[in-house]
């Protein structure tokens, strides 16, 4: 009996598998009006644009919400453009911004977009005090003054008053950041619980006016968007967007090759190489904002010598690294603002030159080199960078000991100024040069505690450059302002304790029929509404 049943079971199982196999010889490609993207989206912990601060969430927000000002995805270099605000004026003293909200546009709910929504949204971002709120509060807004400083005077007019004069481009760039997204105030207010500004509800729902609205979000699995057919800015071709969480690069590649997805956003160099011969697939390169650098603690008697700092700049094999283990993932970049930012500096004055390095070390009185410790967190690419640096330093007689640790340990040491050399990465927080200048080139009080600022962490006392950073943030002439950043970076590149080495390059794999997929480069986020197939 038993054995017969067992055999029957086996036979059944086999029959089932065989029929399943034949049943699944299926589709080629995704439907014409659906865009399917593979991405790592496990960093999404909230969908509330005034709360989220990570990459995948920002990408989502950019397609679901509009801002007062925005960027042209096809040409980011044009800078901020009118968004929900069709125009704006700035008062004589440079402190009051008056935005005219365009009429006749609607949220997904059908509610009209008015200045009151803008007022509610900006106040909400300030008062909720979530992580990205500093982007707005740096202009002096706080919970106590928003009633006066962010105000809708009628349905179409929003008046914003900053505490000091700032460069208009600085303020407007920050109004183009994700945290300045405009939400549907009537809808959000109807979901408020215990004065939470509807945060709990908006974390898993959408209330925007963008090209797409949320269908559903399954954490660590996928999110789906559907088109807003009445979108004011464009007529999107893709009716539906599906972003799937596919953590593994090789899995993404396989899906892309099979045509089960249209875009793969996390291919590693091996897989990029692997699909390079496939004529159905293309790889786009996009510079992103992340900068890799090493920095030297200026409390250290040797590392604070200008000649030593200069010598180390010649003892790094920039090209060697980007041509080997960083291939395709980074480009050489030697300034603190990412390329494509306002005020970018393209100069790359340094390359590996051991003789020159030795000469400078000798001038500094260290002809025989010295011993130094590099701390690095245990992430593969950082360790590889540290090892390459260890190797090239050695050629000039500098003996490096590497200390690895978890992110928290190493960051803790860095923030406590308890290190000699640190291998670091920094990504900009909002699309304005001040975001990096404020951390790389500003140290308001070297004896105080400003652990958030990189210049402070390296004990780099720079009253003059700090003053320049502040001046640049207040310069009203955009051309002049950009030049100020160029000049600052030239100085910084030569004399700072930071050796900026690389900028992140993102490689996106796509089916060749997918056109118009913009990742937003270093400045902005991905856009789905320009995509065609």
């Amino acid at each position, binding site marked *: 009996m038993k054995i017969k049943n067992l055999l029957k079971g086996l036979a059944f199982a086999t029959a089932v598998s065989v029929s399943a196999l034949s049943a699944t010889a299926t589709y080629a490609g995704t439907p014409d009006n659906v865009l399917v993207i593979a991405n790592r989206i496990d960093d999404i912990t909230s969908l509330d644009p005034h709360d989220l601060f990570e990459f995948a969430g920002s990408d989502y927000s950019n397609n679901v919400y509009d801002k007062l000002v925005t960027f042209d995805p096809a040409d980011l270099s044009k800078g901020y453009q009118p968004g929900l605000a069709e125009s704006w004026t700035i008062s004589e003293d440079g402190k009051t911004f008056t935005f005219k909200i365009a009429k006749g546009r609607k949220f997904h709910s059908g509610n009209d977009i008015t200045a009151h929504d803008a007022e509610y949204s900006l106040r909400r971002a300030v008062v909720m005090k979530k*992580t990205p709120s500093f982007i707005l509060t740096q202009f002096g807004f706080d919970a106590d003054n928003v009633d006066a400083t962010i105000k809708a005077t009628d349905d179409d007019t929003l008046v914003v008053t900053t505490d000091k004069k700032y460069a208009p481009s600085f303020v407007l760039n920050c109004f183009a950041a994700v945290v300045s997204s405009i939400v549907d105030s009537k809808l959000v207010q109807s979901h408020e619980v215990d004065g939470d500004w509807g945060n709990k509800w908006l974390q*898993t729902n959408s209330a925007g006016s963008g090209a797409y609205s949320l269908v559903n979000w399954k954490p660590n699995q996928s999110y789906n968007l559907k088109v807003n057919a009445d979108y004011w800015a464009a007529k999107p071709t893709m009716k539906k967007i599906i972003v799937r969480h*596919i953590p593994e690069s090789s899995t993404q590649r396989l899906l892309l090759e099979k045509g089960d997805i249209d875009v793969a956003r996390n291919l590693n160099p091996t897989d990029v190489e692997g699909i390079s011969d496939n004529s159905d697939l293309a790889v786009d390169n996009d510079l992103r904002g992340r900068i890799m650098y090493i920095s030297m603690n200026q409390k250290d008697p040797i590392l604070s010598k200008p000649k030593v700092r200069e010598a180390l700049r010649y003892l790094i094999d920039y090209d060697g690294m980007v041509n080997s283990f960083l291939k395709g993932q980074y480009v050489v970049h030697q300034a603190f603002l990412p390329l494509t930012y306002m005020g970018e500096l393209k100069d790359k004055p340094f390359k590996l030159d051991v003789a020159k390095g030795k000469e400078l070390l000798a001038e500094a009185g260290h002809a025989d080199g010295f011993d130094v410790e590099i701390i690095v967190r245990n992430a593969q690419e950082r360790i590889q960078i540290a090892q390459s640096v260890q190797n090239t330093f050695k050629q000039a007689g500098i003996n490096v000991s590497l200390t690895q640790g978890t992110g928290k340990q190493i960051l803790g040491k860095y923030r406590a100024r308890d290190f000699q050399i640190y291998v670091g990465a920094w990504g900009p927080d909002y699309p304005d040069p001040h975001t990096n200048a404020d951390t790389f080139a500003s140290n308001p009080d070297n004896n105080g505690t400003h652990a958030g600022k990189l210049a402070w962490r390296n004990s780099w006392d720079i009253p003059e450059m700090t003053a320049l950073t502040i001046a640049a943030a207040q310069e009203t002439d955009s051309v002049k302002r950009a030049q100020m950043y160029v000049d600052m970076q030239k100085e910084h590149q030569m004399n700072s304790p930071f050796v900026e080495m690389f900028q992140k390059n993102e490689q996106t794999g796509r089916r060749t029929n997918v056109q118009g997929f913009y990742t937003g480069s270093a400045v902005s986020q991905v856009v789905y509404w320009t995509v065609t197939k």
Partner: protein
Amino acid sequence: MSDAVDTATPKRRGSSVPLLKRLKSLITVLFTVLLTLVGLLFVTFIIGRVMPVDPVLAIVGERASQEIYDAAYKSLGLDKPLMVQFGIFLQQIAVGDFGVSNLTARPVSEDILRVFPATLELATVGTIFGVLFGVPMGVMAAVHEGKWQDQVVRFVGLFGYSMPIFWIGLVGLIVFYGVLDWVGGPGRLDVYYEDIIPVVTGLILIDSLIEGDLDIFWNAFSHIILPASILGYYSLAYISRMTRSFMLEQLSQEYITTARVKGLSERTVIWRHALGNVMIPLITVIALSYANLLEGSVLTEIIFAWPGLGSYLTTALLSADMNAVIGGTVVVGLIFVGLNLLSDFLYKVVDPRAR
């Protein structure tokens, strides 16, 4: 000897155990379960609090100002003494409230209801696969001890045991999905089939049958068959080896010789008498390997983009999302306890002596 033969062909006997005694044993069991769970919760809770990951930083990010950090610290209740925190935590759990996950901004119970069915479905199909193939293979190897059949089974088992699962998974995907196109790709369904059928059990294979949607059933089946076979291969390796050694032990017993002398067919001797007697240890082995799969296999889930308990728990653990970790741990704990009880029960079904 005749005793042993009898065990394989048990006669139903009426219950002679008094009700009171049964009740007492039931209470003992419940008490043990409860104690195990509280111990489990306590250990998890303590580990969560001493882990070198800062749950506040995980929420607010590395760049948050002190003010924002403090607000989040307070809202998590971390400013209260540890024992008070544990007390609050037990109270909440008693009413089935695991709190809200920091990572998904949803109640943990809701998260688990979403991710656990995916794991349950995968583990169940995997275990069925492992048992269907593993047990006969083990029996065959034991019967043909030392012959080529034995060698083949041993090789297959060892291979399954020693190959890294991410490698087998990837190669499997490349061959069966990428090249041959026999099975569905990563994920539980093709994207266009998602969110069509209502969620009843969360097990797509069953939900689609309830809904009568065979297209979705076959699609789900084509997606699950590969990861389930790979997980099943793992348990197959284990189950077949254990079956083999249990069987060898039984086949050397004298009652087997007796049965043969009695003139029973070889098939009956092996499959009914010998296998019947290894059922009890075998059930334990199967239950344990099933429980292991139910914890969620992180690597398999990552390769196959399978939204299950394993990757949910790992992500939560790495970000110190304690509500989610504890919720998941309780579920895993319950599974182990539950499967233990179940195998105890199954002992009684297959072996009258255990009644």
